[in-house]
């Protein structure tokens, strides 16, 4: 029996049995979230890598969308590349709507400034385990793990640095977490989709590609660009020479940048110089910026080898599952509190112009 038609299911659920892995890079405003549908016999398991709820920028309400996507309220796994709020916001809501078999996470403890939702992750891990689910620590490895008919492969954080984040200073700790952020790829054979979280230049230079350690494991045709299109993947400061070994080792055909527009982003993501470097590598038409038109992008790996072109949802997911800004509500409540209209008073200060017509 097929589930009732929903926007999420109509757009995302594979109708072609030849699809081994489908990745949907969701528009979630200032944050990141990727849904992977991994073939498992006749069905597909749902994996969610990172999650974010951005009301201000109308990001997709990922938990609601996932609940609409799945046939039964259940997903195979939630992967958290690192415990910063913009990769974690919504995990509680997700766990409220669907049961999760497994949580994979980097094991870092963030500062309160950047990881105020970290306690939620801990709660959800407990909830998953209480229901008989599994907790897995992301650790860089030389081998991939079989999941259904496909595989995942964790490239970072390196096993030897997983617990090595102890700085008290919030910014320093944030930087260290980015250096040791989870990097994971999904696929099989020579077809891979790599998700780099907020991994930065140091993560690649000092660990992943140190002495070409993971160089042979990095190639992937699809790259979820690190850190919302930040230049931190290439350099520490704008004026630095870019470090290109990471991008060249991955050697993607298409890049997905999860960020709102620069004007909307409080960090000016994506950075122009980073976008230019991505474009230089894959050409302009193959860099897909979710925030430009609030699109979500979809790409498939096929069972019989090869992969699809990139398609998008035409903004439908953000339209149907976009979170509403609370601003409307606040203004409405303020108007309500102003009381009944008798004679218009001076509105200086309350920013309500006098309307005639």
């Amino acid at each position, binding site marked *: 029996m097929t589930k009732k038609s929903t926007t999420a299911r109509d757009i995302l659920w594979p109708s072609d049995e030849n699809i081994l892995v489908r990745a949907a890079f969701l528009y979630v405003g200032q944050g990141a979230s990727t849904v992977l549908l991994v073939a498992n016999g006749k069905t597909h398991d749902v994996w969610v890598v990172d999650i974010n709820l951005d009301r201000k920028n109308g990001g997709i309400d990922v938990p609601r969308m996932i609940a609409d996507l799945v046939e039964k309220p259940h997903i195979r796994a939630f992967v958290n590349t690192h415990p910063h709020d913009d990769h974690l916001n919504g995990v509680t809501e997700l766990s409220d709507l669907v049961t999760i078999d497994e949580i994979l996470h980097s094991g870092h403890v963030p500062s309160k400034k950047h990881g105020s939702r970290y306690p939620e992750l801990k709660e959800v891990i407990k909830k998953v385990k209480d229901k008989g689910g599994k907790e897995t620590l992301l650790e860089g490895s030389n081998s991939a793990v079989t999941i259904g008919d496909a595989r995942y492969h964790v490239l970072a954080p390196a096993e030897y640095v997983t617990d090595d984040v102890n700085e008290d200073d919030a910014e320093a700790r944030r930087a260290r977490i980015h250096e040791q952020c989870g990097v994971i790829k999904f696929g099989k054979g020579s077809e891979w989709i790599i998700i780099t979280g907020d991994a930065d230049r140091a993560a690649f230079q000092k660990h992943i590609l140190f002495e070409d350690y993971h160089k042979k494991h990095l190639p992937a045709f699809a790259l979820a660009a690190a850190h919302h299109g930040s230049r931190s993947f290439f350099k520490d400061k704008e004026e630095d020479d870019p470090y290109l070994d990471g991008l060249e080792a991955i050697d993607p055909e298409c890049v997905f940048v999860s960020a709102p527009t620069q004007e909307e982003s409080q960090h000016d993501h994506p950075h122009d110089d980073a976008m230019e470097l991505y474009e230089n590598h894959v050409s302009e038409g193959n860099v897909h910026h979710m925030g430009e038109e609030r699109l979500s992008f979809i790409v498939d790996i096929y069972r019989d080898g090869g992969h699809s072109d990139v398609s998008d949802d035409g903004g439908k997911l953000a339209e149907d599952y976009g979170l509403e800004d609370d601003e409307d509500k606040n203004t409405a409540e303020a108007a309500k509190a102003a009381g009944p209209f008798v004679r218009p008073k001076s509105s200086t200060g309350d920013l309500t112009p006098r309307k005639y*017509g």
Partner: protein
Amino acid sequence: MATASLIPATIRAAYEALKAANICTVTRALESGEASCTFQLAFNIADPNTENLPGTIELRVVIPHAFPFDTITFFPVGDELQGFPHQETESGKLCLPSDTKAPFDSSRLVQLVQWAHEWVQDAANGTLLKPGEPYELPDFRLEKGNPYNNLPPVPFAESGTTFPTWEPRIGQSGTVQFAKCKDAGAILALKFSADDGTMLSTPTFTPELTSKVHTFLGSWILLPRITVVRHRPPKSYEELFRLCGSLGVKIVRPLRRAWAIGNRNEHFGLLLIGFPIPRVVGGPFSEVHWQPIAFPTQEKLKRSFHRKGKADEGRLWNEETAGGCFKPSKPILWAKSTNVDHSRQYARGEIPAPAKDLAIAIVGCGALGSFIAEALARSGVRRLLLIDRDIVEYGNLARHSLDGRHVGDTKATALAHRLASANPLTRITGHPGKVPPSDRPTDDTRRALEQADVLIDCSTDHGAFLWLSRFARSSHKRLASLFIDAHATLLTLALSGRHTSCNRAFERLKSAIAEGRTPVSAQEYFGEPPEGEIVILGAGCWHPTFPAFNRHIWQVGCSAVDLLLSWLQRPYRCDGCGILVRRLETEKGPAIDILWNEPYR
């Protein structure tokens, strides 16, 4: 009889110049009448020619006394020159090129006679209409002795889209339901059905216009062609019957049916005669043209003979065909019709798709809302839903498109009715309810809002606007909100985006003003009640009024309509938009300045 001495000198000079030019032979000398002078001339043309005209063609020339400023006309003398395109059927008058191109001096007559000569030569060669030129309808006008000249025209909507329905029906007939609609100044052809009962066509005239008017039945018949002599339609029933006989089409049955069941209230019946026409001369047929003929009904005949139902229909019909209005020698009383299909109306100021295909709800039908509604209705927007629960008061009339006849009616319904008469093809409905509407799914206002693709808030009610913003966002509809200041010097327009609510765009605009980033100061925008605002005491609450002139509201309203249409013509963008329009009084005169037009997310 006027004497030659009364011939104005200007006409005399022009006449002498014509004779000296030696381009025609004057066959009857110039003489003067009460308001014009006439003379007759003859041209020699090629003989034989394709139209079998004689080698000499004689014309009567009429020169108004106001020569050279009034129109000179040419009429054939004799019966040979008739039925041509670019020629009036009834009088035979030649239609020459636009006479504004001829000089306004004594040489004007020579120029026009030369053109008349060229017209006659083209007529003889059958080249008055050249392949590829726009097709010209036959001339059905009948000015003299036509008691139905004052009958309103019959608008119909036919195009290439509807042609496939009719093409297989050529040679057939059926029934048509008419509605005589005083408000629209028209007899609307509502429904066409075939003789076997199949519904063929239901033009989408707005029910606002047709729901409460008297309807009556008539007939239609579709002929393969309508011309009998060259480009001329039949003038008499004899010609019509002969034409139908030669085409193998039976016309008596539909004619008799229309006569028997026509408009009994006003005692006239209508038979719509259709025929296929091409868009250009020589092109394939691409649409149907309908031309009505009018006649007295059976009912009228009964009354005129004081027979009131006692007479047998068959006997009355025989009387009519033998010696009455359908006697073969009687003239056909052609009535007027006009094709109002959207594809035709575009050339007369109709906006193109996609904006015209949208269903637009206007919330608030005050000075600004009624103006926007009128502009959109006349521009051919296909569906308008007008929402306002206010009643029209005398105080509203200075700045409203409604008038004293509507005082006491609800603004929404009165305006819908009035605008329906301005464009019968726009479906306009009035909804006298409030916004926000109740939660009941059957609430009329709620249903109206749900039907709309686009909402335009002219309510000036901030609560209504906030509700509309949330409603539009959750139901994926576009929302625009607009209002003016007290003197109509400043228009504010907030537009939603695919990902940006209208209120969010408005909030961003207000922030920009408050922070001094726009050319409008915060003091002007948010400041104290302006000079000129008067609070009128009334039962219940004080009622603030504002002093803006109607012309100033319409002036900024025009800009608002342009901005709205420009927004609706484009794909729906992610960004919303905040716009400020300033009405200026400059040294050179009034002007409009778009002060601010910024996208917002």
